[in-house]
């Protein structure tokens, strides 16, 4: 009854290349999906809007970065800049009167074009030098955003997002925003789950492992690198646009600064490179835990009667955020996804695990 591998036999290739090879995994995924679907009826709207919704959108964004960093192995420190391109083009398109469905696609495509520019750096250098180049590109993009009022929306550098409307329905309720975010996140997750079953995913992994070995196998690494950057940028663009349309409601350059790029990379690496469940966990950890710890500090100091400086309290989340990255990398450099995998593998064969030793 505990031994969840019992009765699992893969007798043909189709069954062996399923997304979930073990029924227990599939059942868990279905359960999580149903929970996500029912969340608006289970959770108070404060939690729904300030925790669940950013979590889902950032997860979609992190999965996009995971595509290029985890699957294709290319370091990317300018991801927030690519998100900014998508957000600004989608909102400008929507303000111009384009229906939101097309505005989102326009945002994604604009991001793809700009994001592919980042790929040209990847064609020339890799590793550390690629990270530095993308970092410099992020600074260039920040500069362009803050110095061109035509893009960032006048002297206050903020751009109001028009009311979101999909399929002819105005979306204004918390539940509506949540379902938009949920739908996008599910879509990206399904895409990423299928990626490793396709030739594209395997080609990306080949490029990551050794680019000239991939070339010998007949994988054109230049082509696949650009493809990886373009696909991940599309996801980034739509995520950025949705983030502004359903969460911030107002686009400002600081929402896509270099610190945000570092934050998304932290989500991906803390979650685990190339791990989908890891991206969910990593985003939750990086996004939600610092605020939680801050609440504990504030509550704890009040109940103990200690006075903590307001400034100290304001900076504790940052310190916790940095410490989380360091601690997770020390405990398990492969991230939370690997930790989850270890536990899953242990439970998978429990109580018969001693048989393998």
């Amino acid at each position, binding site marked *: 009854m505990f031994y969840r591998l019992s009765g699992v036999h893969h007798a043909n290739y189709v069954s062996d290349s399923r997304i979930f090879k073990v029924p227990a995994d599939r059942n868990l995924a279905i359960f999580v999906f149903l929970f996500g679907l029912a969340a608006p009826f289970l959770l108070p709207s404060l939690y729904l809007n300030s925790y669940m919704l950013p979590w889902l959108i950032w997860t979609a964004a992190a999965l996009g970065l995971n595509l290029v*960093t985890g699957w294709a192995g290319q*370091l990317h420190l300018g991801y927030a800049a690519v998100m900014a391109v998508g957000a600004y083009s989608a909102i400008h398109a929507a303000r111009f009167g384009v229906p939101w469905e097309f505005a989102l696609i326009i945002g994604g495509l604009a991001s793809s074009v700009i994001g592919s520019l980042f790929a040209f*750096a*990847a*064609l*020339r*250098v*890799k*590793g*550390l*030098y690629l*990270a*530095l*180049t993308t*970092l*410099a*590109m992020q*600074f*260039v993009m*920040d*500069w362009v955003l*803050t*110095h061109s009022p035509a893009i960032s929306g006048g002297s206050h550098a903020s751009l109001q997002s028009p009311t979101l409307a999909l399929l002819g329905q105005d979306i204004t309720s918390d539940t509506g925003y949540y379902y938009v975010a949920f739908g996008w996140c599910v879509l990206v997750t399904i895409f990423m789950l299928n990626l490793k079953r396709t030739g594209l995913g395997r080609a990306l992994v080949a490029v990551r492992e050794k*680019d000239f070995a991939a070339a010998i196998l007949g994988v054109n*690494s230049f082509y696949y690198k650009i493809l990886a950057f373009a696909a991940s940028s599309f996801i980034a663009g739509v995520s950025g646009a949705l983030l502004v349309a359903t969460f911030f409601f107002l686009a400002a350059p600081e929402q896509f600064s270099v610190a945000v790029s*570092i934050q998304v*990379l*932290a989500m991906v*690496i803390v979650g685990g*490179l190339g791990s989908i469940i890891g991206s969910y966990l990593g985003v939750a950890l990086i996004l939600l835990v610092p605020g939680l710890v801050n609440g504990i500090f504030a509550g704890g100091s009040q109940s103990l009667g200690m006075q903590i*400086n307001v*400034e*100290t309290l*304001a*900076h*504790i*989340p*940052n*310190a*916790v*955020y*940095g*410490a*989380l*990255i*360091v601690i997770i*990398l*020390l405990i398990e*450099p492969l991230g939370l996804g690997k930790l989850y995998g270890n536990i899953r593998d242990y439970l998978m064969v429990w109580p018969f695990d001693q048989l393998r030793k």
Partner: protein
Amino acid sequence: MDWIFLSELAINGALTGLLYSLFAIGLVLIYKASSVPNLAQGGLTMVGAYVVLALSHDAGLPLWLAIPLAAVIMFGLGFGIERVALRRLAGRPVVMILMMTLGLDIFLRGTTLAIWGGTSRSMELGVSYEPLFLGDIFVSRIHLVGAGVAIGLFVAFMLFFRSRTGIKLRAIADDYMASWSVGISVERGVGLSWALASVVAVAAGVIWGEIQGVDQALSLLLLKGLTVAVLGGLDSILGAVVAGIILGIIENVGSDFLDPLVGGGSRELIVAAVLILTVMIRPHGLFGRHDIERV
């Protein structure tokens, strides 16, 4: 063309550039010994400046005592960071090491600000703000002092790399497997390079703290420091000094021409452009070794 104005821009640019070198020397020291790109150098610089402030202003020590004491504390901190955080990641892919230093940077910044608060404070080194005129050219005194410190540190490190310990560090930089097999403690050497970089961070923190005040902005030097380090070649201290001067001049003269065209703030743009062009055209920099991995 006003040549005096241009040379004033160039000289002040070169002096500022030497201050970037001060920062970049720390990056180079660590990269040389362990091939770790230390993105936490900005955080270390900030911590260095705040420790000096804590010793001099809060504890009341005179500056000539506070700065060496801070250097000793930071020496220990650098050693500790390498021991606790970086050693266990040795041999891991560069993305994890990069993330570790970024995490350290965020952690150091957050902790420093949580302890000492985020309001900008002044270093009060006692260097006068009287303008200094060399002929017709106006030069800032504090920049001159800082440039002197940068040159002094450069000479000191050149001499240090001729000593017994320095030669060990050079051997580690060259080939750590070979160093291991002849009995050099690679771990201690790498730890030492972190400790020295933290001491350099104190120097950079004090000078930059005097110039722009001690606050979170100190860690924003990272992009400029990185650009200088990459332009000079990530493993060459001489390169860091020369590249600092070059970048300083390009930035100061270039922004004077570009600012009226783009409406100000073109310094960041120039620095980012120099970084991108360096990596695209000559990834190993001016003086670096040629074994940078290309695609």
